[in-house]
């Protein structure tokens, strides 16, 4: 579209977005943290694969992996990872009802039920995993 009729056309002011645009606002900060959680989710998958590999290699390799996991640095990293993964799960479950439109007998299922079903599934799978490990 030509804007030549505008006397001062080339002098529109174009504000630039700061690199730190996400710092000043809580919702933006939470969004960037949620994006960051993907790194920790990826690390938790790598850690699980390393564990499976060590188990597959037999006793000595497994013991070496357990010793490595007990290292304070590794414990600290995994504690931070746990916090981020839980944050990821909670924000994901809270967003899910906005994306899902579920109908039962022609009526739209309320958002709270959809979020509740996600949390219930999470609790059930966590209980199953705990039972497998502890039981």
């Amino acid at each position, binding site marked *: *579209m030509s*804007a030549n009729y*505008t*006397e*001062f056309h080339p*002098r*529109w*002011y*174009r*504000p630039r*977005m700061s690199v730190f*645009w*996400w710092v000043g*606002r809580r*919702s*933006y900060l939470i*969004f960037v943290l949620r*994006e960051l959680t993907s790194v920790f989710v990826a690390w938790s998958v790598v850690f699980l694969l390393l564990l499976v590999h060590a188990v597959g290699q037999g006793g000595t390799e497994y013991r070496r992996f357990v010793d490595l996991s007990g290292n304070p640095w590794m414990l600290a990293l995994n504690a931070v990872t746990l916090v981020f993964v839980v944050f990821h799960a909670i924000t994901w479950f809270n*967003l899910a009802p*906005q*994306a*899902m*439109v579920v109908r039962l007998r*022609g009526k739209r299922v309320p958002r709270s039920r959809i979020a509740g079903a996600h949390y219930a599934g999470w609790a059930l799978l966590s209980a199953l995993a705990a039972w497998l490990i502890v039981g």
Partner: protein
Amino acid sequence: MVDHIILQVTRYRPERELAPTTQEYEIPVHEEWAVLDGLNHVKDQLDGTLSYRWSCRMGICGSCGMTVNGEPRLTCATFLADYRPGPIRIEPLRNFPVIRDLVVEIGDFMRKLPQVKPWLIRDEGAAAPDGELLQTPAEMNEYKQYSMCINCMLCYSACPIVGLEKDFLGPAAIALAQRYNLDSRDEGAGERMEVLSTAEGVWGCTFVGECTTACPKGVDPAGAIQRYKLTAAAESLRSFLLPWRSS
């Protein structure tokens, strides 16, 4: 006695300055006055050179969107009394070039909007309907929420992706595409998918969710976009598994 409040208004006069400045005006606060009434008081009584857009004063025309104390708001629906004792900072909408003072250039949105074909599309080959295309209240409720959009562009101002990715279609355009996709009389969902299911369409959205927070009409563009992501993903999967059935 009438209260007074300070408005800190962004000024940009391209004929005499390279970047915006701030000018303060002291105005009376009446309980029923919206921020727009305050700006009209400035324009009428204090400084006739101040430029801003407005029309209906009742949240229908979508012209008077500005950034009020850092939040994208319709100034006709934002009341001065709620900001006492002030001051109130009034800036142009973010993520748009500024033409003058509080007036932004909206050509980018106006070019993006028709790309999603926000009108009823009917199959050209099919016979014309015999009479009206009837619709039940339940069918209308499918899209009614998205039809409430007044193109005020507050969602574009609230969305950081709009600011970072200049080709992103943006919240309102996608919500309006859904308004027609979900209309029982429409047959254009396939055509719209070519525009919507792209990196500049729904996949550009990272679900910050601020568009929905900013929307003065309860449209929930973020929900519309995420719903469409599910639709587009299901369609991709269907065309992969059942290529002979894909649309």
